């Protein structure tokens, strides 16, 4: 029923291709950092919709609350105070969470069949029932997003409200955002919306304003409008050119078929050894000698 807009295009640890004839509308969430006031309504709406309640933490002396993403906090506001020009303090507030990469490192690294899926609309979803809790997706993620739960040893992250999107609604965080810093729609429309925002920001003196849609991970389905797109790292360490770790690429790319072949050869050699040499039989007198001692 509701899966019509959630056709699966790729599935973790699965060699057979997913059905790929139908193409659904590519969606995206655009986060306009220049409009965000850091009210955290998105954090609350996320927990409310997804039936999560994180533990009540302690004050760390900063506005970040909770201090980091957790298995129950799938999105957090990250506050940075930056002084690019002397005497001109800027308070940059970035909504952190899954970027829904077009080329997801988590999905590539995952060894559990079907625990991570990518829908043809661009959403990357974790299916915790199939998760084995190995945490490889955390290594595979260039944005350090997935979090392993201590309660059930499963990994959780933002789903881009796939359950809402599947019935034609926007994610909970987007709907609640009072300033309109979050918008959701087709990826094409979001890029156009971002371009209009960038023109506006440039007219206000932000000459390096730009869209953050990193090509290193094939583009993302959660994009940022940055006032200073030339240095994304000032937004609490947003990577400038995110890439899937070389180790993951090697291990799941070149080495995987070689390892599989090796495994096949071992089985084959064992079989041939059995046929040509036969089983290793223990002679009766060897047994007797042991008893004799």
């Amino acid at each position: 029923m509701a899966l019509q807009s959630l056709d699966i295009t790729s599935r973790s640890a699965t060699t057979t291709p997913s059905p790929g004839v139908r193409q659904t509308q590519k969606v995206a969430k655009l986060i306009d950092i220049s409009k965000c006031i850091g009210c955290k309504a998105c954090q609350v709406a996320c927990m409310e919709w997804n039936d999560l309640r994180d533990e009540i933490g302690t004050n760390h002396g900063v506005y970040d609350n909770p201090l980091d993403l957790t298995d129950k906090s799938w999105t957090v506001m990250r506050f940075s105070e930056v002084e690019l020009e002397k005497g001109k303090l800027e308070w940059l507030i970035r909504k952190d969470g899954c970027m829904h990469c077009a080329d997801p490192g988590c999905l590539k690294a995952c060894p559990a069949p079907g625990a991570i899926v990518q829908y043809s609309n661009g959403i990357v979803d974790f299916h915790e029932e199939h998760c084995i809790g190995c945490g490889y997706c955390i290594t595979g993620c260039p944005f350090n997003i997935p979090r392993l739960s201590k309660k059930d040893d499963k990994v959780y992250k933002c789903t881009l409200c796939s359950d809402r999107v599947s019935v034609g609604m926007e994610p909970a965080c987007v709907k609640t955002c009072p300033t309109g810093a979050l918008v959701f729609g087709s990826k094409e429309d979001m890029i156009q919306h971002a371009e209009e925002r960038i023109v506006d920001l440039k007219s206000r003196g932000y000459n390096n304003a730009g869209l953050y849609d990193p090509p290193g991970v094939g583009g993302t389905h959660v994009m940022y409008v940055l006032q200073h797109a030339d240095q994304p790292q000032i937004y609490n360490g947003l990577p400038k050119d995110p890439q899937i770790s070389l180790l993951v690429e090697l291990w799941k790319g070149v080495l995987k078929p070689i390892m599989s072949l090796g495994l096949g050869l071992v089985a084959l050699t064992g079989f041939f050894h059995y046929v040509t040499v036969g089983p290793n039989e223990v002679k009766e007198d060897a047994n007797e000698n042991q008893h004799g001692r």
Partner: protein
Amino acid sequence: MLSRRQFLQFSAVSAAGLSTSSLGILGFSATQVLAEVRQYKLERTTETRNTCPYCSVGCGLLMYSLGDKAKNAPAEIIHIEGDPDHPVNRGTLCPKGAGLLDFVHSPNRLKYPEYRAPGSDKFVRISWDDFIAKNADGTTVNRWLSTGFLAASASSNESGYLTHKVVRSLGILAFDNQARV
């Protein structure tokens, strides 16, 4: 009996099979069906419109409750979000409004009348009949009703707390503060 050729063919096919499904031998079954998304939880819930009462902005709310209003299924609110058709907020909600579900289900909510006797330091639960009787004969009226107090919206948390303590200890009921000003 297998001929040599058949045997080699069989071996090659098994090796290829093993290498493509190496996960199969490690105990992961490839028979699992496609991942199933979390189903949309408001499918057949009852939608009720309301207005958020927690500040003077007055945002429109949509409250979703279990049960389809059938006689034998009492409703229970499971989700609250903004009303897109409301001209004030057009679907958006502030962090307080976005968390209203937990106000509704708060364990601290007053659900029955309580009475604190003069000189006592704790409230005791009383019946609705007792409550109405006490109100009717005026025994609980110990309030300064002729005066109200309006406090500024720019107060800090600390001065807001102190204002509240002073005003309430004087017995003033009509007291308003912060965003409602």
